[in-house]
């Protein structure tokens, strides 16, 4: 049989182009697969290579020796290495190969008028959107979009994506959190009705990753190689993209050599700020929120017995006093705590205290939420619909979520989990709605940390760049 039947080859090209896959991820029978390999449609790469005195996993780039282990393999009857780092995506073993499609590249569709979004951009958003379009047209390598929390980043992307689709490019939007993929998918499908769009995240129903436009968590990029002409990376400062070296590794491999990468962030890390300052990284700054009001500046409040109160799961006195004198007591409250344990245990004590003081009506409820909470999405939804009055949360809700009218309090803002970027993001949860563009942000601490001071400083600086005093 000749595998060069063009129709089937085109079909395989659609399915496998731009991927780097294990044999078990390629659903073809052995005969056909071997034929395709020997006629050069698939190119095998060794899955684990030796680099000087270290090993490296070809899929995730892991070089950490504690994340390699040996396994007595029952296929090749030898003991050899496997990678523990990316094991959640299927085990990569030394005796196996990763396959790249080297056959014909599929032609991605060009669209004349793909975008049906009818919304209006503000002047500032328009400026940034134009800059993104320009970067894509000129095939610039990188562009950083630095937009304050609540600037409306997603909408700013639409003109750029429209342009890319007109040019028949393949697009990927990668974000650190699965929640965000789930939230963006319907919005993109509505805005780009004729384009095939797939959402990939751990546990997503679609797994193929064959669409022209892909929304994915950054981890999913590990299965791609030279796939995208335009790559948009959301929240580059966020965990895990910032902390896990395999994710930038995967992102840089997933794009084509002459592609454009757009980075989005509200709180660039030192590394990016240095690159901006030394003009190594092109950037555009969006200093105002879409409703044109300044960012709320956090207030720092000292609590002398904070550690003692928190070990007893008691809300600090300062918090009780503040809650009695809030500007707008109708606003919901978003309370950040450093640990899951605290989030769970403080809920009961807080409810009791506030009920005793008559500050919480019987029908208003306090709920806690954290990363390993099975009802997480539901609780966030309830809070958004105002069925919950106060939400105790860990840093999982620090970014990417919008609640219309909240005041924000951070308990123990001096804790290590609250770094500068996290605090800026947390402060950015307040005042996001045009109906209630202000909001109070309170950091409760028992000694200022650099992170707190820097966070306030950078918020003030961003407001100043936006023309506010």
């Amino acid at each position, binding site marked *: 049989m000749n595998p060069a039947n063009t129709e089937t080859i085109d079909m395989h090209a659609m399915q496998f182009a731009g991927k780097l896959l294990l044999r078990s991820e390629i659903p073809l029978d052995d005969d056909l697969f071997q034929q395709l390999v020997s006629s050069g449609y698939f190119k095998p790469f060794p899955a684990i290579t030796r680099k000087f005195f270290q090993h490296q996993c070809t899929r995730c780039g892991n070089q950490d020796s504690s994340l390699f282990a*040996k396994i*007595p393999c029952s*296929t090749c009857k030898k003991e050899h290495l*496997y990678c*523990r780092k990316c*094991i959640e995506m299927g*085990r990569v073993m030394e005796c196996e190969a990763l396959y790249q499609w080297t056959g014909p590249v599929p032609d991605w569709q060009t669209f004349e008028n793909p975008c049906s979004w009818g919304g209006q951009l503000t002047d500032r958003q328009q400026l940034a959107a134009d800059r993104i379009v320009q970067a894509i047209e000129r095939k610039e390598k990188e562009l950083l979009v630095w937009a304050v929390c609540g600037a409306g980043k997603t909408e700013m992307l639409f003109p750029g994506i429209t342009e890319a689709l007109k040019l028949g490019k393949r697009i990927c939007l990668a974000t650190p959190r699965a929640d965000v993929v789930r939230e963006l998918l319907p919005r993109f499908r509505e805005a780009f009705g004729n384009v095939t769009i797939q959402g990939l995240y751990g546990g997503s129903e679609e797994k193929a990753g064959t669409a022209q436009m892909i929304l994915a968590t950054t981890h999913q990029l590990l299965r791609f190689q030279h796939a995208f002409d335009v790559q948009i990376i959301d929240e580059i400062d966020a965990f895990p993209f910032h902390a896990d070296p395999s994710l930038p590794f995967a992102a840089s491999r997933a794009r084509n050599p002459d592609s454009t990468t757009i980075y989005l962030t509200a709180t660039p890390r030192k590394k990016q700020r240095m690159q901006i300052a030394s003009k190594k990284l092109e950037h555009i700054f969006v200093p105002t929120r879409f409703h044109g009001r300044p960012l709320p500046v956090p207030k720092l409040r000292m609590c002398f017995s904070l550690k003692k109160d928190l070990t007893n799961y008691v809300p600090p006195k300062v918090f009780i006093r503040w809650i009695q004198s809030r500007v707008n007591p109708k606003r919901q409250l978003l309370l950040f705590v450093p640990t899951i344990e605290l989030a769970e245990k403080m809920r009961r004590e807080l409810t009791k205290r506030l009920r005793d003081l008559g500050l919480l009506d019987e029908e208003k409820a306090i709920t806690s939420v954290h990363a390993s909470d099975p009802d997480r999405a539901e609780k966030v939804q309830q809070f958004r619909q105002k069925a919950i009055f106060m939400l105790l949360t860990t840093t999982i809700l620090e970014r990417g979520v919008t609640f219309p009218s909240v005041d924000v309090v951070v308990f123990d803002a001096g804790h290590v989990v609250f770094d500068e970027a996290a605090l800026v993001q947390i402060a950015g949860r307040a005042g996001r709605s045009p109906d209630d563009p202000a909001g109070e942000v309170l950091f409760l601490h028992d000694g200022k940390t650099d992170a707190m001071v820097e966070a306030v400083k950078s918020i003030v600086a961003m407001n100043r760049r936006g023309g506010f005093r």
Partner: protein
Amino acid sequence: MHCLWCNQQTIAETNWSTLLFLSRPASICKACEQKLEKLTGKRCARCSRMCEENVCADCRWWETHSKERDALTSNYSVFAYNEAIQDMVTKWKYRGDYCLGNIFKSHFHQAFKQHFHFLPKHTIAVPIPLSEERLLERGFNQAKMLADFIPLKQAETVARIHGEKQSKKTRKERLNTKNPFTITKKVNKPILLVDDIYTTGTTLRHAARLLKQNGCPDVYAFTLIRG
């Protein structure tokens, strides 16, 4: 050293006992170790479940409802089934992170020394086998890995016919399954079956019955987790 589970660097505590006796470095950190829940206190003599009676209701059911005497003399398990150990076993077994099995090495070895000292020296350890297909899919047999932790001679005396995973079945389906094992070698010595998890005990009893029918005098079971 890095913790096998959370990959945090573990720093060994320096005190007189570690200085003098050069204790072995721990495979996981203290925080992860605490998530494991060891079975303690009074428990069923037959199946190792924590209960106040000598023999629990389930085991009495086995006694009255099976036609012959219960083929399995007793089971001993080390850990209770909780979310933490479930996550560990899932990653170890199904994702295939082989070296995670070492988390249980010292516990499993210790428990063997404490609770199976009555076994005669010529007892044979038999890890519950996987079907050939499943073994190729996973790359290793988790029960074999556990059996390697204990100082007994091993033998492959039974083989398994490929079927649906036990963990995908309901309790009722499990209790009514056909015997998935066939005998490959007859042994007339006492046998200690080794497996990762005891849920209803059906799998172990299937193997035990088959071994007894083929001339084995006593069959015991040693499992990591009591589900």
